[in-house]
């Protein structure tokens, strides 16, 4: 591969934002027929490099050549026309348009200038079938979950038949099956000679698919390596810039003792919670200090369960008891009053308020709970915010920057801080580690353990079964929008068994 000429080279790329040097003299090359992973911590500059390449941002310096020709795109439109197709980090589609249209807009099949809708739908269905997705292509994209939206974005990108395909964290919300499907297609495209730039925080995925790795750190280039020649441990060290024993933290597989936490009145117990069209009625009890993992395939209804528990959506019926007394969780405000917090998976639409500063975003939930008449004193705000910026190593560490200027992973950390500040008794985390670098991920996992040791109950949703297994006392399994099983997380439980449950959909009650 190395002997061929690179299809894309970027030399000496620099890019600054007010107060931040996002990229500094970065070189990057991409060969035809390779999958090239771009690695780095949150805020290292990966997304910025991609945006500079595709012309979303102007460069402050440096040159880009495509096929030996110097190029400077004025925007994604030109980039696409030149054969560079991109899936950006935050799903960037129009939720008001139909699925089919999202895939084909801008290059619809036309007859005498008129869009051929039948053809659009037919081709969209074909394409999605290739990705093993069965969707109503004329439904608005917004009616599907984020994961589906991400798959649609990928479908759009690969259908463009570009020479360069850029995928910025495409797998962050996909489950194992979806990832496998994506990889199969990526390999196929690679074999057709397409150069693929791939960003992810999952090391396993890198080693599974990438031929070559470029590592960025703090906006600077660390180096370019062949995957085969770079052991996982040294990759992490290069990303973090320190020799850390992070990997030990990840490898540590602690079994949690369910019996120890499951005594006394449960903190929250719901029965017959459900919502027509979203989730079948389910029952769940959560005790103080307990971590309940929620496993299931994409679209199995995990997010829906979380939203019902938080009052983000209304249930059709059912009972809730908090601390053993009947209660209700009908609005988020009510849930927060009862000590429930919810960190949504869709941080851009449901999480951050982009205009507001990091500080304001962090104290938002706490402030909401106090009511507008009792502002959190500024001193206290600063204390809290400083504490969490440090604890979660949020970068840039400036509490006054608008949160929209932060990298995706750092925004996620800000949201986490928002809820930790409220000191909830039950914290619902929907994909909290999505798009978070390996260092921070370990931190968050440790944090969850600490919090539960401190008596906080956590409902933990993650596409990574290992992570769920590592943290939870109890695992609830979702399938087809039904809670099909609940397992105690003991020696008998492993990923295989959960997968089987998901696959078979056995309705057996948990063996607890």
């Amino acid at each position, binding site marked *: 591969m190395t002997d061929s000429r690179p299809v894309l080279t970027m030399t000496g790329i620099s890019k600054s934002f007010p107060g931040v040097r996002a990229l500094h003299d970065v070189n990057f090359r991409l060969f035809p027929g390779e999958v090239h992973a771009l690695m780095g911590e949150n805020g290292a500059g990966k997304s910025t490099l991609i945006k500079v390449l595709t012309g979303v941002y102007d460069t402050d310096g440096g040159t880009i050549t495509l096929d030996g020709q110097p190029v400077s795109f*004025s925007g994604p439109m030109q980039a696409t026309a030149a054969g560079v197709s991109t899936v950006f980090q935050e799903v960037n589609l129009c939720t008001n348009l139909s699925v089919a249209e999202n895939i084909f807009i801008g290059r619809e099949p036309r007859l005498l200038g008129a869009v051929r809708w039948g053809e659009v739908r037919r081709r969209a269905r074909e394409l999605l079938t290739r990705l093993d997705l069965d969707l109503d292509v004329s439904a608005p994209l917004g009616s599907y979950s984020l994961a589906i939206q991400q798959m649609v974005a990928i479908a759009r990108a690969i259908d463009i038949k570009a020479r360069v395909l850029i995928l910025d964290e495409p797998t962050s919300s996909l489950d194992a099956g979806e990832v496998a499907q994506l990889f199969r297609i990526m390999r196929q495209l690679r074999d057709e000679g397409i150069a693929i730039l791939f960003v992810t925080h999952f090391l396993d995925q890198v080693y599974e698919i990438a031929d070559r790795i470029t590592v960025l750190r703090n906006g600077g280039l660390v180096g370019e390596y062949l995957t085969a020649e770079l052991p996982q441990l040294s990759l992490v060290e290069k990303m973090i810039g320190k020799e850390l024993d992070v990997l030990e933290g990840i490898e540590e597989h602690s079994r949690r003792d369910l019996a120890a936490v499951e005594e006394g009145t449960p903190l929250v117990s719901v029965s017959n919670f459900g919502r027509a069209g979203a989730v079948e009625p389910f029952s769940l009890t959560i005790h103080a200090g307990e971590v309940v993992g929620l496993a299931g395939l994409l679209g199995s209804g995990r997010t829906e369960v979380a939203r019902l528990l938080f009052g983000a959506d209304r249930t059709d019926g059912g009972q809730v008891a908090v601390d053993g007394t009947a209660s209700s969780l009908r609005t988020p405000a009510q849930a927060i009053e009862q000590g429930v917090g919810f960190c949504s998976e869709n941080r851009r639409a449901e999480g951050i308020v982009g*205009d507001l500063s990091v500080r304001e975003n962090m104290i*938002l939930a706490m402030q909401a709970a106090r009511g507008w*008449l009792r*502002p959190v004193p500024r001193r206290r705000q600063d204390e809290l915010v400083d504490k969490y910026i440090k604890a979660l190593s949020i970068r840039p560490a400036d509490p006054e920057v608008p949160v929209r200027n932060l990298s995706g992973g750092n925004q996620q950390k800000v949201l986490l801080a928002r809820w930790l500040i409220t000191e909830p008794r039950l914290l619902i985390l929907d994909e909290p580690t999505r798009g978070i670098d390996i260092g921070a991920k370990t931190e968050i996992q440790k944090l969850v353990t600490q919090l539960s040791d401190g008596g906080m109950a956590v409902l933990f949703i993650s596409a990574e079964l290992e992570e769920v297994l590592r943290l939870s006392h109890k695992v609830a399994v979702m399938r087809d929008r039904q809670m099909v099983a609940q397992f105690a997380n003991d020696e008998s439980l492993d990923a295989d068994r959960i997968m089987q449950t998901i696959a078979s959909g056995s309705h057996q009650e948990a063996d607890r």
Partner: protein
Amino acid sequence: MSATMGRYRAVTGHRLFWPAAVLVVMLAANTIYRPGFLSIELKDGHLYGTPIDILRLSAPLILVALGMTLVISTGGIDLSVGSLCAISGAVACMYISKQPDQNSLTVVLTALALALAISLVLGAWNGVLVAVIGIQPIIATLILMVAGRGLAQLITQGQIITINSGPFRAIGLGHLLTLPLAIFIALAAALVVAGFTRRTALGMIVESVGGNAEASRLAGIRSGRVIFLAYVISAACAAVAGFMMTANVSSADGNAVGLWVELDAILAVVIGGTSLAGGRFFLSGTILGALIIQTLTTTVYAMDISPQTSLLFKAVVVIVVCLVQAPAFRARFARRRRSVPPPTTTADKPKEQVPA
């Protein structure tokens, strides 16, 4: 050298720099045209002069624009403020005109309380339509914009109600410490609104709701209440502005009071840097915006620009004001001037921005 440069940048980079610069340029142009423009003299213990007029006349606009700022910041818009001005003025004047002793302070205070109460109810009506029923703000408030004019005329029976009440007149024409009372009222209202929003968490919560309503809901904010409150505050501001407008001429004209003030108010808010899309709001910018608009109007009269061309003149000024303020315009301009790449301090954004 670089320190002065830095300080220069810090000044020009300030949010209020460009609106303030525009205001100064307009005043300067007037002074060149008529050297006496800025002169102020003391007459009967009152300061008298064009700058004072501008301040006094902009007071109602400032009031309306303050409320409008909050509403816009929630992502809404309030078209009914002009009609609310007319209603509050009409109610107050009508009540006073029916009393035997129009100069009694109790009568005037009762009238004000009555008019304010009615305005609050109407503000609450707007709030309910937007926050509870979920009608798009522009339509929800359009209803009251149309019907409110009718209500105001219904109250006055289509007549101009002239009153002769010293205390009421004082709202528009009274003086305090040689300055028109209206200036102090506007200032006080600005301080109250600023205190109300910035001393409490209301401001941040409003900005949060305007910035991302769903995220705010999920953070536990009862956004309905906040939006409701914004419309009520807006109505209250409009009511006081209505008192001022009617007191200024001691008469209530249901048809003319506050006509098109909503457009001016929105213009002031936007010139002040608040985005119509909602989110961050800037009260000081709004006040500056209102002053710019009033200065513009006064300029037309002071320079005796012909009525046929005054609108063209306004169009040019508005567009210039907005252009010099727009970072994108300055960035382009700066880039053209120097061939070197632009300084890294100019706001670099994605090339496309979300429209308002």
